[in-house]
Structure formats: structure tokens, C-alpha cells
């Protein structure tokens, strides 16, 4: 179990800028901190071992710490609204419950936590519509509809409350009635308690709790919420859905929120006269199809009136909001690269880990200094992919993971902590408690698997590294080879675009650069087209399209649309990003296959053991002579820390029909994969009986090289496991040698020949 956890307020920081760390100390009162450069985060005794370089800085020292908690769950808050219970009012909405078995789910509430008074309109007791009224003397009264709503069915609900008489009327109507299903309900009663008119914010999908948190969250969609003054019959809401509202109805409107407006923003728009605009907290899903979605249009930008729903989740999280424990300025002369704040609160033992390496990156200065030359080589840290996998918890929540991994699921102290803390929020591979997919992932929370020393349950037998920590194999090799390099993150590339790449001759990727926004994609393509030399050091890159939010830093969105290896699938009609309005899913399905960027594209995956490459005829092509200088071996990479070989985990291959350069050389291909290395979904139309690498000739990684017309080039290793082989035999091996040959040539100014 972890006794100290934390996160930085940014993943990328420039020299001279401040970075803050949010730390939760689970035991004790103090912890020590120091800045380290991350060289190698793999504990495997078969490899070079852990390597961190202490950097003296203002961060070094002892700090006071305390436990910090996360208050997860999304909701809407309206700060400016008057006390509703000062008179009779009616609330109506369309709702789509997704976890009705959970009790105490607030639809809307105006509640004063000091006195415990106000009202809550909620869903409780297996899915019944209910209203709870409370006065300042601590008395509460409740009315329930008496019948449960079904999961994932639309209901028109209406609740009228008259504080003067105590009269409450509940109405729940299914949009789609079913034979022998009794979910239509109407209840009314004069309650003995009149709700206090409290001057508190109006909350939707949450309610203020005495401990200062927001709880009682609603899981499901809410569409067309409407607040009217006075008591109205349930069918009255129909009149407010018309394009032109009867003037006699207008005077009753207190608020009429239209969630189909400003979907890209965190504001919710009240179209009523008083403009009681709301604000959503912890990123409930927007761009969600509403109760009136017909399927005639799948994009919310083209028919927003069909996308009037927000999907709230009791476990949504954007910003953990922890207090800063350590803050310091990055030294002006600190070299760009991977770093971490090492925090420790004591000795670790079999039961507990009392240290944490909180990873971040130092980018080059934002403004180039005159007369100071930058390195030729740039490493692109896959922070979008680290976010996509943040707190990846399929080993906890998904059954079948052991079969997929073909070995037992390993839980270290980090995984045990993750198990106990679902409030950390899931990855883009996880599902919410209500079964819907997690489509947003934020870095403003502890990202437990974005850390050196983390050994993953899916990282291949041996070191068991995946994503960030697997990339430290590359950092270690670059350090060992004495390569002078700068480093930027995906988020930097998204923000700064091509200009950030422009002056570098070589870009080196990590092991699994899978997630890219459109600005990232465009910037990389522009750079390649202008002579850039890309060393793609991994597998399954440029696979999913993502979006960043305009207003909220550090959060990405994915829509698991149509195709690809997915652990959940977006609902039909919800394939468009709410952050941008762009069509989401695989870049391949958008017409920009990975091959267009990195020369190869995803073909297969398997997580147990890796294999080797065999030299292909193109290796003898004079164009590839520089790559194989000093490498005579027929077999390449039959060793390594990730599954015992250089070809493993996820593999790519050449496909010119998908955009691989027509001139590309297949230098080597992997072979002898086992049955658990299986063909990717998008590679077949009819399910073949020979999915596994032991029977399918297409299951292989292609080591590839090709020149671009502008004097640049692409080198692709096509395997996530590749970098795990770099350090073998004291870094003296054919994988290392090939990479070194490529890096040296790519960094050389001489253009690659473009024409015969």
C-alpha cells in the first residue's frame, strides 16, 4: 500500500517556471523531497537497474504533509439563483438513469448544510422518483413515487413543491412504455414539513454534504431541465419543448437550461429571462444524445437540439484540488528531459511503499535564446497516452484480463492502493460505476502508473513495463549513448504546434505514442513533410484521435467509435468529441492511418512474451546500408526485458494501401509469435479462425525505413517491446546498434536522397 501519493500541477515545465506538487501523506507528519532526473525506472534485476540523478534545487528539503482526499462526482452548480422554496415551484426534466439500484441520487437540490434544510428532488430506493423536504428544526419528510424507473430508459419527470401547503406532486412517465412493466407513477401528498427557503446554490446531480463534500450524485443523463414558478401538471413541460412557446407559459419560467448549447464549454446556458447560467464541475459527459435523438444525425454540431443531455457520473473527476505541498522554480540551466520529484516518508517494506517518484518533464525554454544552439534531437514524451492510461484499472474491474495477459495479474503496492481508491478516477480504458465508458482523463489527480518503478500488470513478462516506465528504457539508452536531446510533451506539441518541432532534425518517440489530437497530428505531418526525420521507437502509434479542452487544461477526450481494440464502445450517435465537435475514434477511420505518419500501422497485440526479428531482403538494399553498419546478424532482438524479445506487446506492419511510403524498405520482420499475439480487430472483416501469431502470417512487426521527398526519413521499430532490448549485454547488441546507426545518420544534416 502507498503511504505517500501526489501529482504535479503540470506535466511540462520550462526552465525558470514554477511547478507545484500536490501531496497526500497517509501516515506521519513530514516527508522529504528532492528533484531527480529520471534515467531508468525499471527495477528488474535482469536489466541495468534503477537510475536517478539527484539535481540540487530549491525543492530539496523536508515538508509538512497531511492526508488529502478526492471528492469525485460531477454535478452542475447554479450560484445566482434565488431561494426556490420561497414559493411554489415545479421542476421537470427528461432523465435516463444508468445506476438506479444506488440510492440517494440527487436530480436537483437547494440545500443548506449548516441547518440541514431545503429540498432535494431525487431518485432513490431502486429508481423511484422522490422529493425530500427539510426545515431548520431538523425535521424531514419524503415522498416517493412508489415505482422504480428502468435503467437506461428515458423518463419525463415532474415534481411540484408548494412550501405553503406542504403539497408535493411527483410524476414519472416513461417515454417508451413496455407491456407488464409498471414504471409509470404519480404520487401526491401533503407533507408535514415545509422546506426552508435557503439561499444556497442550486445543484444538479449532487448535493452539499455536512462534511464539505458534494455527494448524493446522480448517475445518468439529464435533458431539458426546467424550473417553473407555481404548481403545474406534468404534461405542462411538453409546451416548453415547442420551438415557439405559448406566451402564456413564458411568465412561469424561472430557468430553462439548454444543454445543447455551448457543449464545448463548462458553462450551462439558461435560456430563461433571468439567465441563471450554471457551471459543470468534474466534467460530466457532454455532446450526449438526448431523449429526442432519432438517429437522423450523429453530430451534435449539426443537430444540437438532439444533443440536449449531460451524462453525470458519481465517479467523474477533473481536478482533485489538493493543496500544494511543494513548489519551486525550475533552475534556469536545467537540461530538458524527464524528471521527477522524489518524495519519501520512511523506509518501504513488504506491506507499504513510503516513497513516490512524481514524474514530470522539463521542456526547452519557451523562447530560444540568441546564440544558444539547441540539440538536433527531440524526444516526444507521450503524455496524451500516459493520460489515456492514467490509473488503468482493468486488472481490478474487468474479468478476463488474466486470460488476455496469459498469466496472473500482478498487484504491487500501487495496484492495491488503486483498488482501494476508485475516487482517483479511471483511465480511458475503464468504465464508470454505471458501465458507461470513461471518455475524459485529466492529469490534475494522482496518475499512479505514470511513475518510475511502477511495474504494470500488462507490460509483458519480465520487467512488466508499459507506457511511461517503459519509456525510461529509451531515456536510459539515450543517456548511456551520451545523446544530447531536448524533450517536449504531447501537450506542448498540441499547444505550440509545428513551430516547436521546426528546428529539430530528429524526433524520437517513446514506446507507445498512441493518442494524438488533430493539432498534434498536423504539426507532426507538417514537420515530416518539411524534411523531419522520425524515429518511431514503439508500436501502435497514432491510433486514436483525441481532443483537448478549450478552457480546462490537462484533460483529453476520446470517443471509442466504430472500430479498433476497445474496452468499451461509444453509444451510436456519440462519436463526436464534445471538446471540439470533431469526429472521434481511430485515426485510420478518419482517413489518416498511422502509416501516413510513421510508415507502419497497428496489426496485432499480445501481452505475455515477445519474439525476435529476422532480417528481410530489403536489409541488403544500399539505402539501408547505414542502418546495418556493424550488424551482420540474421536474427535481431532475440533478447530483452519486455517479454524476452524486441518484438512484442503491440506490433505494426507496413501497408502501402493505408499510407505507408511506397518506397519503404522492410528491413526485418518478427516471427514465431505465439497464439496469444492476435490480429487487431480492424484488420479483418470476417472473423478468421487463425487470429493468433502461431497460425496467422500477418501477425508480425516490420522494421521499416523510408525517405521522404523533402530529404527527411522515417524509421519504425513497430514494436512496443523494442526499447526493452536496448540495454542488453551492456548496451552492446544489434537493437542498440541499429538505433545508434539510425540516430547518427538522422542527426546528420545531409538530406536523404529523394530521387533516383
Amino acid at each position: 500500500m502507498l503511504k505517500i501519493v501526489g501529482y504535479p500541477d503540470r506535466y511540462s515545465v520550462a526552465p525558470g517556471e514554477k511547478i507545484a506538487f500536490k501531496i497526500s501523506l497517509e501516515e506521519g507528519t513530514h516527508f522529504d523531497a528532492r528533484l531527480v532526473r529520471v534515467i531508468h525506472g525499471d527495477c528488474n534485476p535482469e536489466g541495468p537497474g534503477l537510475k536517478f540523478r539527484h539535481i540540487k534545487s530549491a525543492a530539496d528539503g523536508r515538508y509538512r504533509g497531511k492526508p488529502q482526499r478526492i471528492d469525485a462526482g460531477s454535478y452542475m452548480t447554479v450560484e445566482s439563483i434565488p431561494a426556490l422554496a420561497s414559493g411554489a415551484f415545479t421542476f421537470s426534466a427528461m432523465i435516463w438513469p444508468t445506476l438506479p439500484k444506488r440510492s440517494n441520487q440527487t436530480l436537483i437540490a437547494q440545500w443548506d448544510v449548516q441547518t440541514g434544510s431545503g429540498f432535494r428532488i431525487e431518485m432513490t430506493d431502486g429508481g423511484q422518483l422522490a422529493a425530500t423536504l427539510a426545515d431548520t428544526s431538523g425535521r424531514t419528510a419524503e415522498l416517493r413515487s412508489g415505482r422504480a424507473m428502468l435503467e437506461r430508459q428515458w423518463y419525463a419527470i415532474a415534481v411540484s413543491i408548494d412550501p405553503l401547503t406542504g403539497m408535493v406532486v411527483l410524476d414519472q412517465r416513461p417515454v417508451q412504455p413496455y407491456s407488464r412493466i409498471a414504471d409509470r407513477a404519480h404520487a401526491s401528498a401533503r407533507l408535514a414539513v415545509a422546506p426552508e427557503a435557503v439561499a444556497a446554490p442550486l445543484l444538479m446531480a449532487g448535493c452539499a454534504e455536512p462534511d464539505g463534500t458534494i455527494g448524493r450524485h446522480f448517475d445518468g443523463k439529464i435533458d431539458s431541465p426546467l424550473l417553473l414558478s407555481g404548481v403545474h401538471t406534468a404534461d405542462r413541460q411538453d409546451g416548453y419543448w415547442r420551438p415557439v412557446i405559448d406566451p402564456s407559459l413564458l411568465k412561469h419560467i424561472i430557468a430553462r437550461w439548454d444543454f445543447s448549447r455551448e457543449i464545448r464549454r463548462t458553462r450551462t446556458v439558461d435560456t430563461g429571462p433571468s439567465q441563471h447560467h450554471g457551471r459543470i464541475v468534474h466534467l460530466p459527459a457532454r455532446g450526449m444524445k438526448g431523449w429526442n435523438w432519432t438517429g437522423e444525425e450523429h453530430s451534435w454540431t449539426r443537430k444540437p437540439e438532439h444533443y440536449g443531455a449531460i451524462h453525470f457520473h458519481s465517479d467523474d473527476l477533473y481536478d482533485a484540488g489538493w493543496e500544494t505541498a511543494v513548489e519551486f522554480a525550475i533552475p534556469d540551466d536545467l537540461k530538458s528531459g524527464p524528471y521527477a520529484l522524489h518524495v519519501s516518508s520512511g523506509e518501504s517494506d513488504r506491506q507499504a511503499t513510503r516513497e513516490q517518484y512524481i514524474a514530470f518533464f522539463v521542456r526547452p525554454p519557451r523562447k530560444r535564446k540568441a546564440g544558444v544552439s539547441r540539440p538536433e534531437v527531440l524526444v516526444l514524451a507521450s503524455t496524451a497516452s500516459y493520460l489515456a492510461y492514467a490509473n488503468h484499472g482493468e486488472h481490478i474491474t474487468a474479468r478476463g484480463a488474466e486470460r488476455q495477459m496469459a498469466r496472473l495479474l500482478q498487484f504491487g503496492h500501487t495496484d492495491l492502493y488503486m483498488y482501494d481508491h476508485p475516487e482517483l478516477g479511471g483511465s480511458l480504458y475503464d468504465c464508470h460505476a454505471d458501465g458507461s465508458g470513461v471518455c475524459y482523463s485529466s492529469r490534475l489527480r494522482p496518475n499512479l502508473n505514470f511513475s518510475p518503478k511502477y511495474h504494470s500488470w500488462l507490460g509483458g513478462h519480465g520487467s512488466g513495463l508499459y507506457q511511461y516506465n517503459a519509456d525510461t528504457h529509451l531515456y536510459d539508452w539515450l543517456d548511456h549513448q551520451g545523446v544530447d536531446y531536448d524533450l517536449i510533451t504531447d501537450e506542448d506539441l498540441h499547444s505550440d504546434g509545428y513551430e516547436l518541432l521546426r528546428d529539430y532534425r530528429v524526433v524520437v518517440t517513446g514506446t507507445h505514442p498512441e493518442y494524438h489530437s488533430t493539432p498534434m497530428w498536423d504539426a507532426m505531418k507538417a514537420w515530416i513533410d518539411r524534411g523531419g526525420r522520425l524515429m518511431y521507437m514503439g508500436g501502435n502509434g497514432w491510433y486514436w484521435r483525441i481532443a483537448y479542452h478549450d478552457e480546462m487544461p490537462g484533460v483529453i477526450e476520446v470517443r471509442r467509435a466504430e472500430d479498433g481494440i476497445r474496452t468499451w464502445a461509444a453509444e451510436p450517435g456519440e462519436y463526436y468529441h464534445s471538446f471540439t465537435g470533431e469526429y472521434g475514434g481511430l485515426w485510420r477511420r478518419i482517413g489518416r492511418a498511422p502509416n501516413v505518419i510513421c510508415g507502419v500501422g497497428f496489426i496485432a497485440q499480445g501481452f505475455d512474451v515477445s519474439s525476435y526479428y529476422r532480417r528481410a531482403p530489403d536489409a541488403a538494399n544500399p539505402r539501408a546500408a547505414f542502418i546495418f553498419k556493424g550488424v551482420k546478424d540474421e536474427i535481431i532482438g532475440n533478447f530483452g526485458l519486455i517479454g524476452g524479445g524486441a518484438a512484442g506487446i503491440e506490433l505494426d506492419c507496413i501497408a502501402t494501401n493505408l499510407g505507408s511510403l511506397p518506397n519503404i524498405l522492410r528491413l526485418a520482420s518478427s516471427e514465431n509469435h505465439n497464439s496469444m499475439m492476435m490480429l487487431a480487430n480492424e484488420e479483418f472483416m470476417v472473423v478468421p479462425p487463425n487470429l493468433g501469431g502461431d497460425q496467422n502470417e500477418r501477425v508480425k512487426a516490420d522494421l521499416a525505413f523510408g525517405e521522404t521527398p523533402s530529404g527527411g526519413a522515417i524509421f519504425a521499430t513497430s514494436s512496443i517491446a523494442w526499447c526493452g532490448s536496448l540495454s542488453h549485454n551492456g548496451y552492446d547488441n544489434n537493437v542498440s546498434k541499429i538505433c545508434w546507426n539510425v540516430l547518427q545518420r538522422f542527426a546528420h544534416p545531409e538530406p536523404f536522397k529523394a530521387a533516383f
Partner: protein
Amino acid sequence: MVYKIDAQSDRQYIEEFREKPIGAHSPGLQRLLNIIRNDPSGYQIVLICRKPFAEWVLGTMPPNRLDGPIVIEEGPVFSSREEAEWEVFRRRWRKYTGEDINTPFRD
């Protein structure tokens, strides 16, 4: 219909698994593993690493983490992942066939 494990015909795979618990398997052993690695109850045996690359024990995870904690066994303590795989294989073999495998992981 899912293949029904049969002690007599599947016994041939026991030694193959013991020899190499992780890695390429024969189709027959892979079929066996695909079946026994699934527990319809939702309970999941997991490997608890107490000391990285040195010491493991087994644990059982309930169907839903809200149902309670992972129950961690005090022992046996394994010095390799393969040794733990063998122990779990033996338990599952017994569950499916009623037979004990008394062979240790390494002679």
C-alpha cells in the same frame, strides 16, 4: 458448447505447463488455460507482489471492489512468478477435476 475439461485427456498438458507456465503453449494447453482462467463467480485470483522481482503471494479479489478488500494469503510465498502460476494451476486443476497434483514446481 464450451469444451469440458476431462482429466484423462487433459492430463497430458500438466507437465507442459509445469515446464513453461508463461509463453507459447500447445493448442490443447491454451484451450485448457483459457477455460480455467475464467471464474464465472467473478472472484479473481491475483498475484500480490510483496517485494519486486523477489517475493509474491496470492490474493483473491471479489467480483466488485465495493464488495470488500482483496484477501491476501500469508503463504505460500513464491520466489518467482512461474512458481505462483504453478500453484494456481494446481488449485484450478483440482477445482475442475477433483484431482490433486502433487508434483512440486521444480524437482
